[in-house]
Structures are given as C-alpha cells and as structure tokens.
C-alpha cells in the first residue's frame, strides 16, 4: 500500500489545511491540460509534499530533450567559408577572449563582426574564458575559424544549456508559481503549466538546434515580469535593461514596460509617486551606464567612438526592410507590391515605423490606464507582435519574442485561451520550418512538433474505442473518469475551430508539397512564401484576438485570465 504517501499528504494538509483543501475540491476538469499525457505523467506526484519531484522531472527532462536536440547539426554546419550562427557565436567567444574591449566592435567586421549589445559580449567573454581553460584550440584567434570538432560542438551546446538553466528556467518556474498561487491552482497544475512553457518547441529548436542564446534575453524579460508582479519596479527596470543589453530584439517589449512603469509611478495607485519614478529612472540609467561603461573606460584612445560604434553595429539601419523570407506584413505583401522598387530605404523606414507605432499604440494606451498584473502578458503580446508584423529588418527567429508572453499565458485555465495559445505556438514553429530545414534539423523539427502536440493532449482525437482499455492511449495513472470526454485543444467558437483546423490542414499540405513537389523554376521560393503567407495570416488573426482579450480583460482580475 502507498501508506507513506497518504501520511505525507495528511501531515501536510494539517499544516496548510486551507490552502490544500481549496485546490483539492477544485473541479479537476478545470485544471490546465486536464487528461493530457503531460497531466498524466505528473499527476502521480500531486501531493504537495512531492512538488520538488515534479520540478526535478520537468527541468531535467527539458534539459535531456534539449541535449538530444543538440545531437543534430546546427546552422551553417559544414558550409564554409562563412558557416552560420553557430560559427558567429563561437567567433564572438573567440574574439572577446583575445582582443581588448576597444577592439571588440571593430575587428574584421566582414567575418561575423560582433553586432549584439555588450552584455552578449561579456557573456561570450566568460564562456570563452571557461572554454579556453578546457581546450585553447577551440578559441585561438583566427585559427579556430570554422572549427567543427566533437569537442567544440559539445562545449557550445553545453553553454546554451547552462545559460538556459541559469537565466530562463528559474524565472519561468517562479512565474507559474506566482500566478498559480494567486489563482488557487493546485501545485501539480502549476508544474504542468511550467512544463508547457518550458517545452516550448520553437525556443528549444532555435537555441539548441539552430544555435543561439535567446534564452538569456527571454530569461531576463521573464525576470522583469516577475519583478513587476512582485511590485519591485526598479528591479524590473534593471532586468529589462539587461534583457535589452543582451539582445536588442527585446526592445519589442519596451513600450509596454515603459507604459507600466510610467503609469505605476505617475498615476496608480496614487498620483505622482516621484520617489518611485526617480528610483526607476536611476536604476534604468545606472544599468545602461554599467553595461556600456567598460566600452568607454577600456576604450583606449577613442573612448566615445567605441561606444558609438557598438550602437552602430547593434542597429544596422543600412540593411533592407526584410532579409530572408519572414511571415510579416512587408515580406508577404511584397509578393504584390515590390516595395524596394516603389520606395526608397528612408521612406520604407518611416512607413514601417508608423505602422509599428499604430500597431502597438492601443496596447500602450490600455496599459497606461490599466497597469494591471494580469494584463501584462496580453499587452506584451500585442506590442511585440506589432513589431514582428510591421517593423524593419525582422528575422524569422524574431517570432520568439512575441512567443514568450504568448507562451506564458499557459498559466491560464480557460480552455479557449489555452487552445489559441497552443495553436499560435504551432504556427510559429511552422514558420521556422524553412530555417530548420536549411539547418538539417528536419528530424528534430518533426519529433519535437509531434511531441509537444502529443504531450499537451492535442492528439486526443485519435483514441480508438474498439481496443481493450489497457492498449488504448489514455491516462495510465491519473484519476480521469472513463466517461470524461477528452478533447483536443480547440476553442469553443465554431469559427475559430474552423480557422484552426483549416490552418492545420494547410500546414500539412504545405509540408507535403514541399517534400514531394519541386518548386516551379520561375518561383523557387514558392513553398517558403506560402509558408510565410499562412503564418502571417494566422499571426494577424491571433493579434486581433489578443487585442480583443486585452480589451475585455482590462477591468477584470487575475482570476479571469
């Protein structure tokens, strides 16, 4: 008998009688991802005393799966002379190692010159130092270019894993716990939400497959959100500035953070809280100064130019409105209007700026008037999505930025919300397909795609009823009534159901033609463009839905997300 289990539960429930009872009585059907395989795996550890086990399981499995993805190739594998993102990151570890800070942003710019903010450089510096300690040939200046040994691959993969473990995972766990407690979610429900967020396939495949350090930037953003939730505004500003200083992409969130901090110090909860305003201001400025100071202090002869050069490198306005094919407004409508011939570079920059501002302005205004905690993810999605859809120089990987707040909304328990978030996660992953295919990560893409959908219960519709119970897919250990009608992650509204199912069918069809039919010779990028068009359509619909939610939730509480 499982005697100790009950003993454990009992002891615990005596201590926190109120807390644990409130969720025990909660209708199980209201738990997020109820009856999904993920729920089924974690349910046996539902006792509050065994929550450490669920956390271990989730984090370790995230790491195991990430490492397993990392066994595959990476971007630019075996493609001299320039290779890809992997080589770029390795190169930065190499140059920060050997050059004085004054040379970092100047050295051989043609070959993957450093074009990320200084925090990335410091991060590279530390990792490079550690790597150099273990095996110097990985990072010898110039000679290590294009190195592709087993050792360097393992080391670089390990650094991403470590960065994720340090910067991203704790933040997400804290976030789910914070929200879960406020919403009286069961501990196991919180863990399930955390797993759903941490297993987000796009980030996994880009960071551990394609190779980048997005988890650090996103991790700092999550920490900033956590600090906002805890009402530590100056700290939130610091974390957000660090996020920007790691990768400029997180500027996509900036209007919302600005709006919240401004509103919280000027209007809510009381007028003109100047102390708070100063604290936030000083924290922000001080963090920026601290991050850029080394560039100035160790800048050698041309200190100021060194700082300016770094900023030049970070914001390359000289590039075109879009580079590769990406599922945003400019790239998709470019099929019909050739922007590059119709307008000049400056005009395009202006238009894209105007469109972006128009896109995020409603969210900005709502946030100014309702700086409420439960609105933060929705506002961030609205803002960063409008950047993704309308701004200048967007990469396909940039979808990770709006995807973070989208995925954080997995703490919700509303089936409609969960379904929408889940759907857009799939779409986002789908728009990354051309990139991952180029990297040779097709196996990893499909395995992770299917795994995520299966884990969160999106394949519940394939449950054959005629087989004996023990061999049919279904809950093995969890307490799901056999009468319970399992359902896939689809919203209640018939229109949305239709849109989602049709979009899935289109994805499937595009994959099939992409595999089976060579693209016509006059349009070699046809399948990629179809991919982008579908992605763009879905993103826009989701963006509207998100605005609708933001609008109707503005006067509600955290219980209603």
């Amino acid at each position: 008998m499982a005697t100790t289990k009950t003993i454990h539960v009992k002891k615990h429930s005596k201590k926190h009688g109120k807390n644990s009872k409130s969720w025990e009585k909660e209708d199980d059907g209201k738990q997020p991802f109820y009856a999904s395989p993920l729920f089924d795996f974690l349910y046996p550890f539902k006792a509050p005393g065994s929550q450490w086990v669920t956390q271990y399981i989730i984090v370790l499995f995230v790491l195991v799966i990430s490492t397993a993805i990392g066994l595959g190739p990476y971007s630019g594998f075996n493609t001299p002379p320039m290779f890809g993102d992997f080589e770029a990151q390795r190169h930065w570890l190499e140059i920060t190692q050997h050059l004085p800070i004054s040379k970092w942003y100047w050295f051989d710019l043609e070959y993957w010159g450093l074009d990320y903010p200084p925090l990335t450089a410091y991060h590279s510096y530390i990792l490079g130092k550690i790597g150099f300690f273990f095996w110097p040939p990985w990072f010898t200046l110039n000679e290590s270019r294009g190195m592709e040994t087993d050792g360097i691959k393992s080391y670089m993969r390990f650094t991403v894993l470590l960065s994720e473990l340090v910067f991203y995972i704790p933040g997400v766990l804290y976030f789910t716990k914070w929200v879960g407690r406020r919403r009286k979610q069961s501990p196991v429900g919180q863990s399930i939400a955390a797993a759903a967020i941490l297993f987000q396939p796009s980030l996994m495949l880009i960071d551990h497959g394609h190779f980048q350090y997005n988890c650090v930037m996103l991790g700092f953003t999550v920490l900033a959100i956590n600090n906002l939730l805890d009402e530590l505004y100056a700290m939130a500003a610091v974390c957000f500035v660090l996020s920007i200083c790691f990768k400029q992409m997180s500027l996509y969130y900036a209007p919302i953070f600005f709006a919240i901090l401004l509103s919280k110090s000027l209007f809510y909860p009381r007028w003109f809280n100047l102390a708070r305003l100063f604290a936030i201001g000083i924290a922000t400025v001080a963090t920026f100064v601290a991050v850029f100071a080394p560039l100035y202090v160790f800048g050698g002869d041309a200190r100021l130019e060194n700082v300016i050069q770094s900023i030049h490198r970070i914001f390359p306005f000289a590039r075109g409105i879009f580079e590769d094919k990406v599922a945003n407004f400019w790239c998709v409508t470019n099929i019909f209007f050739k922007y590059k011939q119709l307008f000049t570079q400056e005009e395009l920059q202006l238009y894209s700026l105007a469109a972006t501002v128009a896109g995020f302005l409603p969210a900005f205004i709502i946030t100014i008037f309702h700086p409420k905690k439960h609105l933060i993810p929705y506002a961030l999605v609205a803002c960063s999505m409008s950047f993704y859809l309308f701004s200048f120089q967007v990469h396909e990987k940039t979808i990770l930025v709006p995807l973070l707040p989208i995925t954080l909304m997995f703490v919700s328990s509303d089936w409609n919300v969960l379904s929408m978030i889940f759907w857009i996660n799939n779409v986002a992953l789908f728009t990354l397909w051309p990139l991952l295919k180029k990297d040779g990560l097709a196996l990893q893409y499909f395995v992770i795609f299917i795994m995520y959908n299966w884990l969160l219960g999106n394949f519940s519709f394939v449950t054959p009823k005629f087989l004996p119970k023990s061999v049919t897919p279904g809950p093995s250990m969890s307490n799901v009534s056999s009468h319970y009608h399992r359902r896939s992650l689809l919203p209640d509204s018939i229109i949305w159901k239709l849109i989602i199912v049709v979009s899935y069918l289109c994805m499937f069809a595009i994959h099939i033609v992409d595999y089976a039919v060579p693209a016509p010779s006059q349009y070699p990028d046809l399948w990629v463009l179809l991919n982008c068009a579908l992605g763009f359509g879905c993103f826009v619909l989701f963006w509207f839905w998100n605005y609708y939610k933001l609008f109707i939730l503005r006067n509600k509480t955290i219980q209603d997300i």
Partner: protein
Amino acid sequence: MPDPVVVDNEIIKSSKTSEQEDQESEKDTKRYSLWNFWICSLFLKFLLIPDYFSTDFDVHRNWLAITNGLPLKQWYYEKTSQWTLDYPPFFAYFEWFMSQFVPKFVRNDGCLDIVPVGQFSWPTIVFQRLTVIITEFLLFIVLQIYINTSKPSEKTQSFVIASSIALSPGFLIVDHIHFQYNGFLFAILIASIVAARNKRYLLCATFYSIALCFKHIFLYLAPCYFVFLLRAYVLQIEGFKFRTYRDLFFIIKWKHLFQLGGIVVGIFGLCFGPFVFDMPQVLSRLFPFSRGLTHAYWAPNFWAIYSFCDKVLTTAVLRVPWILTVAKKTISSNLLPTSIDSIKQAIKQNNNGSKGLVQDVVFTILPQIPPKLTFLLTLLYQILAVIPLLFDPSYKRFIGSLTLCGLASFLFGWHVHEKAVMLVIIPFSFLVIFDRRLLISFMLVTSSGFVSLFPLLYKNEDFIIKCLYTYVWCVIYFFSLRKTTKVSSSVERRVFFLDRIAITYISSLFPMVIIIQLVDLLKWKYPILTKFEFLSLMTYSFYCSLGIISSWIGLSWLYNFDEPLWK
C-alpha cells in the same frame, strides 16, 4: 525506539481507511497503461538516432549481411569481418528476418555487404536504429501483460516497476545509443518471469528456453530456472511418505517432466537443429574461452576490486620494498613474487589490465586467477542462492534466487561485460516491490550499475544526456518506490546506519562522474593528471563494484536470514 514505531502504526492504520476509499473510487478510472510511456520514450529515441554508436552497430549490420547473403550452413563459418556471428541461432534467424525488410535504398547504401569494415551512411543508421526501436515494442507488451495480470491491490506497484523497466537508462544507453537489442531480448526473459508469477510453468520454461536460444548470457540464470521448475512443476513433495523405494518413483510427476522436457528439447532442436552437424563450430563461436578474465574495461565486479588491490599493492611494494620481505615471512612464499625485480619484469612483460584490449590480465603481486576458479566461485554462490528455492518454490523466492544468481555470475564470472548488469537489475526490479528493506539494496545496484555503463559512451556529446537521464530516472523511481513498496511489520529492524552510508554512497556517484570527466578534459593541461589516466576507468569500476557488492551482501542477508520477508 518504541515511540516512533507506535506513532507510525497509528498513522498507518488511520490512513489505511482513506487509502481503501481512494482505491475504491479510483478502481475503474486508472487503467495502468504503458502506452503514454511508450510514445513518450519514442520521441527521445528518435532524437538519439544521429547520436554516437559503437562497433556493435557494425557487428549487427554484419550479421544482417551474413544471414541475408549466405546459406544457413555458412553463417557460423563466415569470417570476412572480424565481427563474426557469436550469438545463438535464434538471434541469427531474427537477423535474417529483419534483413528481409531492408528497403532497396538501404541495401544500396551498403547495409547488406559482407565486407571487413562496413561502409554505410544515414539510411543504414536510420534502418538499424528503427529495428531496435520497433522490436523494443515487445518489451512494452510484455510489461503491460505483467501489469494486467497482477492482483488489483498490487497494480500500482506493478505499474511503477513496469514503467521503471520500460524507461530504464540501461536500455537507453546500451540499446539506443551504444546499439544492441537488449530491450527485445529481455522482453522474452521478462515474459518467463511473468509466466512464473502466474504459475504457468510450461510457459515459463518455453520463454526461458527461447530467451536462452537468443542470447546465451541468460545461461547464468539456468540453475535457478532448473531448480524452480523442477521443484514447482516436476516434484511432488507435499504429502510424500517414504514407505519403500517405490515411493521415490512417484515423487516425480512424470507427465509434467515429459511435457517440460519435450518443450525444452523441442525449442533447442528448433534452434540448433539446422546446425546439428556444425555443432563444434557453433559452440566455439558461442563460448570463446580464449578471452581474458576482465573485459577491456573492467566490469564493476569482484575482480575489479581484486585488480585494484593488485595495483595498489604493486605500487606500495615498489615504493616500500620491505613490505614484500615481511609478507614473505608470514605467507607461504609460492603465492608471492620472489623479488622486486621479478615484479618489475612482470610489469614490463604485460602492460596491465587497464590498457589491454581483449587480452589476458596478469596480476603482478596477487595470485593469478584461473578460469576454473571463477566458475567454481560462481557455481558456489549460485548453489547457495538456489538451495532455499528447493524448499520453498514460491514466486518471491524464485525472483530472489534469480537476482542472486545474476549477481553471483556478474560478480565472479569470467570475462563479464558491464552490460550484463541488466541481468541483475531486471529480476531485482520485480523483487523490490515486496519489501521496503530491499529498496536500499536495489538503489545501490541500480545506481552503481547504470553509472558503470557510462564509460561505454565515451564521447563528450553524450556526457550530459547519460548523466541527466540516469539522474532523473533515479529521482523518479527511488521516490516512487519509496512511496509504493510494502512496509513490512519488521521495519524497525532496519539498520539505519547502513542506510545512511548507502545513501551517501549513491549521492557521491554524481561528483565522482563529474570529477572523472574533468580529469579527462584537463589531462592535456596538467601532466600530473596523465599519471591518473588509467585511474579514471579504474575508479569507475572499483567504485561501482563497491556498490554492487554491498548490494549483493545486503540482499543475501535478507534472502538467507530474514524470515518475515519470505512468508
């Protein structure tokens, strides 16, 4: 300490009612299906396809080629490649069967070429990896049957055990990375264990014979099966009264004996029949006695400790020569080397066990170990494990003696592979649910057994995955087993002090692995570390063998001297 026990009992009593209520309400809602575990493990296995594989991959590819390309008679004579067929014929048939499904593009890739060294690429890798993944499905079926046929009150425990086997890091490391078919082979062995539990003795014998004809390593378990089936199925001891010698004749259930014998002989006939005229050749392939005492890397068994002691003594004697002279006076001198010079000579002649590939190991100070001695030791401990079974042929006893037989052969056998530890872990898993006190022993053998598999995957890219997967498995199942194993009435008799030591030992495995990896990475930098180069593997085997031996001692104690456990 009477107080805590009383309190414990009270809690147990009070909680039992709620437990029963729980069970009643959950009776028809839990279905104990391994399906989700199977699907989930599939994803990881697919991701592992591009991973490193060992020479065993080419071994099995070569066997595919041999069985596909040559007539049956020549299978055991073929030696173009050094990886000759050295598994029993059922496995060869199995390879032949799989080779029928090789698609054309895989064949063109060189999958079925009989060549000294295989030339193949991605299609062959995917095909062979898929055969492992697909055939492992049998394991899930057998385990599901095990769960379904267990009593309702034991279903939770059965489920925990079944899933622990299905997700075992041993299978992940050995099958899906290193490359072998253990999941499939052990499924057959488990089928025989399940049949034994369900008192289907003929089925048990059938499955065991089949397993034996697939992989002859299962021969180590033969004494236990022999005695178990003999006592439980063939002999009629209950109600036996000796009047004349004629009664002895009726002690044997002749019908059962002939059924059993017929099945075993039949299966062996099916297996070896086609090779009946080539038996010497087949047997010489199956039992290559020319191999050394320890494998290339010492399996964590008794001989690892023996070799370790030899190394330590050699170093000590070379540093402090008078130890030898003292020792000579106390111990009969023909067991010891004559002088320091002769030791140095011996070291020069045969570079020691840590370096040798498949070669004989020679000890410099301690007496040499002849194969005969290892067999005698193995047999001795197996007989000790089997005797209680003769008096009490219950399923529990059977599993216990099976585990001990596996342990005895693993610890004292000749040329033992580290992979053979699965032969211990699998039966032990079925045993551990019976009593909480077995848990510590089980934890010792699983953790050190799995860790001892780590050197199989020496590539850096596998380091994280093997460590993390084993670690998370241990966290999940040590925790779940602690929650679900039966607490026996004599729980206060546990020696808590030893438990603490065992836990400390288990948790120190992790730093050991990390430190060895660091030493390995940094040995180019600090020349002093190269001195310890041979130490890293030796530490693995020495340290893991400590765990396995203590687990063996613990289990033997409970097996032989603990009465309530076997009621």
